[in-house]
């Protein structure tokens, strides 16, 4: 890679302004709800008020009489189309519209299509549904009790709420290290249900052209190609007559990976009415019915010597998957990548066991910037390390430093079989401690404690696991997780790059142009990025799990390198010399020893389209493509330190400082990386301190609006202090690792560890998120609450 200093302005990596912001800051973005088609109708979904109830009858006659209603769709109609149930992303099914029972509050029961969205909503109130309410299964810990109501009686012979058992690692070896350990610490902890809550809710506009038979679906999707193929497989729609178009997306965070009933209903509505149908959910619908995240009840057990050498770790998980197992993750991994839970530490053995259960709650499971449950894994190990530090009365930074993987151990094979590509962990932790002034902070804390003031310092060290993934290991519903990229250089030297991934705010239009620019020397401003439209982009699985840069970014880099190589052959014809006699000087092939003789990429592009006689085997034009099957995942990492002050009278937590050192390999655009880190840190503060979707005993969702589901504001966030180290990935063509979810993964344990460190004088060992003032005060009293149930 060329050093930034050597490059002309506007070429390659560096801190350049985002191309997309020109329209966003002017309010000229084009989101799904901005799409208006001639004759378009509007859909609205009738949802279940109950968490668990039998549907006795549905009477739609009054709604159908509404003068502006064009269609009322129920599960009975969908059954005739074989669309009442569709496959989930995890070997299960989900109901598009309930036919037999409703299984969570907010589940879809009927769909009204009307001339305007007001009439559609009014007509919902005219539908009469007769329910027989059933007992709800709310507490995951009681879902398998013999007297628990059976949620999934649609599955033949189903007599319980059990979904799966899955484990990873060597259980016997782990038990063996526990036998020889001086110290064993156990801790129960909950990573509560949280929601991605993107600013834009989910929605779609379906437009079935009855003449051509072509169906266009404008949709809030992070994975347009995967959606198109699934529509083809599920509904039997011909794939060449399907176009999924994902315009500007107002945040995804995993919420927009899956296919929701509303999307399918807009399609059915368009088929039935022969007019375009728009469906956009409201905020409460988004929070109550779309993919949640986490909901992992974890029992951690860590073993160490009395000197603080970690020997082994075991985590047993009870996973609450809601009413349908619709977790979005690679097929072979029912707990995502949770089994990377040994984290950043050198240990002899590790084992995890995960049990999935059904409850009467909304389905989903992986969404929310979690890298396929690395979030839960990092939380588990980072809490356990802090618990161990407490038990050993050792400084948590010292304990981490003692156990972090050393640079010479890479590539490192973890006890559960992951091969970490590269890392210099102690350097990152030391840097974070230096920025924080760690030793001084500990001194200040000691003084404060002597005065009865509660100050806490929390650390976390995370290893991310992103860029899913190698086709030999990973697929989603049989689709391999490779991504395509096409680069075409126009005759005048400008270029277009077509991607299979879809931005939701990450800045792909800038960073992918920078990748192509970095390799070809074409200025970033001269490269147009096309994405989100299945008619105009190559196939690939989309953007989630921080996979765009590691997978699609690699595809863009390889395709760009192919352009440069092809350019070399064309340049050799232009300069009448052998290709071996040319050397690449970013953006220009020149004769070795005679730099004045050379051709720029723009000159070569024009020649490639002109009458120049090309060498044998070289076709005209200057374009290239790549389908990139990553050889391994990438493993970004980071060291985070959080400083909090806790009001001992009220339990209120103030995050005073947050230091984040991230290593994601080289940074394509440092400004965008920092923006992603800032957002993820705010996410982490939110999850640690306030975000909560609890359920009462009847299964009512207690986090169904932004009055109840609290997102952090700037006032809860300190001025972030960021730092970086750079450890390139050895297998990515540009050494890049991806960063999208690092801060969301890494920050919650740092905040929680800080609060619990502040509460140390009270003998508090653990309290579950969110650490609201009430939870903190209760922890001080030795009575922390369960945060997945209604507070009593």
């Amino acid at each position, binding site marked *: 890679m060329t050093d930034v200093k050597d490059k002309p302005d506007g070429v390659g990596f560096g801190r350049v302004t985002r191309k997309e912001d020109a329209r966003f800051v002017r309010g000229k973005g084009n989101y799904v709800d901005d799409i208006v088609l001639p004759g378009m109708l509007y859909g609205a979904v009738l949802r279940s008020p109950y968490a668990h109830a039998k549907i006795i009858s549905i009477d739609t006659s009054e709604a159908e009489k509404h003068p502006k209603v064009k269609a009322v769709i129920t599960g009975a109609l969908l059954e005739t189309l074989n669309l009442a149930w569709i496959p989930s992303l995890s070997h299960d099914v989900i109901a598009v519209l309930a036919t037999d029972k409703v299984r969570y509050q907010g589940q879809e029961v009927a769909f009204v299509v009307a001339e305007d*969205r*007001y009439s559609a*909503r*009014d007509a919902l*109130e005219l539908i009469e549904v007769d329910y027989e309410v059933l007992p709800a299964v709310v507490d995951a810990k009681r879902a398998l009790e013999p007297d628990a109501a059976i949620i999934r009686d649609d599955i033949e012979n189903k007599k319980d709420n059990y979904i799966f058992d899955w484990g990873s690692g060597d259980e016997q070896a782990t038990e063996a290290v526990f036998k020889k350990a001086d110290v064993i610490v156990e801790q129960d902890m909950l990573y509560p249900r949280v929601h991605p809550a993107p600013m834009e809710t989910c929605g779609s506009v379906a437009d079935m052209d009855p003449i051509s038979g072509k169906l266009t679906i404008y949709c809030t999707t992070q994975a347009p190609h995967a959606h198109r193929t699934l529509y083809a497989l599920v509904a039997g729609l011909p794939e060449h007559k399907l176009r999924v178009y994902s315009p500007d997306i107002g945040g995804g965070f995993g919420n927009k990976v899956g296919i929701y009933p509303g999307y399918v209903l807009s399609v059915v509505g368009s088929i039935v009415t022969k007019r375009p149908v728009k469906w*956009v959910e*409201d*905020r*409460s619908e988004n929070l109550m019915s779309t993919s949640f995240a986490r909901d992992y009840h974890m029992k951690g057990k860590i073993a160490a010597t009395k000197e603080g050498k970690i020997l082994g770790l075991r985590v047993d998980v009870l996973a609450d998957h809601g009413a349908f197992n619709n977790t979005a993750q690679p097929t072979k991994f029912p707990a995502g990548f949770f089994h990377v839970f040994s984290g950043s530490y050198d240990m002899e053995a590790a084992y995890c066991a995960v049990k999935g259960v059904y409850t009467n709650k909304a389905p989903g499971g992986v969404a929310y910037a979690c890298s396929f449950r690395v979030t839960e894994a990092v939380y588990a190990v980072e809490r356990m390390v802090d618990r161990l530090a407490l038990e050993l009365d050792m400084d948590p930074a010292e304990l981490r430093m003692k156990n972090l993987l050393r640079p010479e151990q890479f590539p490192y094979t973890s006890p559960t079989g992951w091969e970490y590509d590269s890392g210099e962990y102690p350097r990152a932790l030391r840097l974070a401690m230096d920025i924080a002034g760690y030793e001084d902070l500990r001194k200040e804390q000691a003084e404060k404690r002597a005065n009865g003031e509660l100050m806490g310092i929390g650390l976390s060290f995370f290893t991310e696991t992103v860029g899913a993934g190698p086709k030999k290991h990973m697929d989603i519903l049989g689709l391999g997780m490779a991504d395509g990229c096409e680069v075409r250089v126009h005759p005048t030297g400008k270029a277009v790059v077509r991607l299979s991934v879809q931005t939701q705010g990450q800045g792909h239009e800038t960073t992918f142009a920078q990748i192509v620019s970095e390799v070809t020397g074409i200025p970033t401003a001269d490269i147009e990025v096309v994405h989100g439209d299945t008619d105009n982009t190559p196939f690939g699985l989309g953007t989630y799990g921080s996979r765009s840069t590691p997978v699609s970014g690699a595809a863009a880099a390889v395709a760009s390198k192919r352009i440069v190589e092809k350019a070399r052959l064309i340049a050799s014809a232009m300069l009448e010399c052998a290709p071996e006699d040319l050397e690449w000087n970013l953006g220009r092939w020149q004769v070795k020893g005679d730099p004045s003789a050379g051709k720029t990429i723009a000159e070569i592009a024009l020649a490639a389209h002109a009458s120049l006689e090309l060498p044998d085997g070289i076709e005209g034009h200057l374009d290239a493509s790549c389908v990139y099957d990553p050889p391994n995942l990438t493993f970004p990492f980071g060291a985070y330190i959080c400083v909090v002050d806790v009001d001992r*009278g*009220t*339990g*209120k937590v103030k995050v005073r400082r947050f230091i984040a050192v991230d290593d994601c390999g080289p940074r394509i655009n440092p400004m965008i990386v920092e923006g992603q880190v800032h957002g993820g840190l705010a996410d982490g503060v939110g999850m640690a*301190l*306030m975000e*909560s979707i*609890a359920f009462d005993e009847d299964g009512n969702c*207690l*986090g169904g609006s932004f*009055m*109840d589901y*609290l997102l*952090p*504001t700037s*006032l*809860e966030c300190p001025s972030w202090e960021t730092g970086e180290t750079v450890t390139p990935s050895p297998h990515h063509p540009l050494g890049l690792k991806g960063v999208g979810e690092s801060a969301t993964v890494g920050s919650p344990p740092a905040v929680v560890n800080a609060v619990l460190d502040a509460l140390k004088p009270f003998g508090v060992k653990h309290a579950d998120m969110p650490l*609201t*003032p*009430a939870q903190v*005060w*209760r922890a001080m009293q030795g009575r922390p*609450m369960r945060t997945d149930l*209604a*507070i*009593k």
Partner: protein
Amino acid sequence: MQVPAPFDYKRASTLAEAIALLRECGPDSRVIAGGHSLLPMMKLRLARPEVLIDINHLSELDYIKVDGNTLKIGAMVRHVTLQKSHLAAEYYPIFAEAEEQIADPLVRNRGTVGGSLCQADPAEDLSAVFSALKADILIAGSYGTRKLPISEFHTGPYTTALNPDEILTEIDVPLRSNTGSAYEKVERRVGDWAIAAVGTMVRVDDGLISEAGIGLTAVRADHFRAKEAEDSLLGRSPSTEAIAEAASLAARHCNPFADQRGPEDYKRHLVEELAKRALSRALNRSLPEVH
């Protein structure tokens, strides 16, 4: 998109016109001022008025002034105006302290003082503030005007003593010498409703507490008021013990219930803690300034 049920809309340009419209449109009509409570409830279809009577153009109700020995606050004063009013702050710092913790700037720019009191949300802040200040509420209706002490205005959660054809027009706060006031609130996040909040007003004459007001919100105190705690302070010299005793009484005589903001024991603790803090600060402020 959340959309309200169908409704009709009328705009009043004078108080008299607003009252006439209320009488004409009947009990299913609602007055709309800032709309920051009513509109969300309508969008969720929890409120379904048939007619909205818009009083945003009633500038005659938008004032903060001193008349004799009374601070008069018009019902259409926006939260932000009260928050930044030097006049109000000069007599009672509790106004600025409470207002800057109410909702967020967008709500404060539109929401009104009168609307907040009429919404009668059990976690509303100004109800506790005016209760601490022992304010009077002025009401105008078809049959003339009347005046109620704040302690008789709220009749329960979301209900007030207003008749369907009446409008709250003004809040009167008596001016007092040697008096301090303060507001303490804990919320889960900025802009959230209070988990609990305490407003205090204390007057000290000749070294003894001669008048005390303690308003509570979000903890189901009768009329947003801690009467037993107020009474316990009268005639006593300001002391840590007196404050602690009053705070403890305030905590004992409210009826908080558990919700996602916190369990009952925490809320009760919070009332005691915040009452101590707000009483101490009010007492400090009651002392003549040292120059």
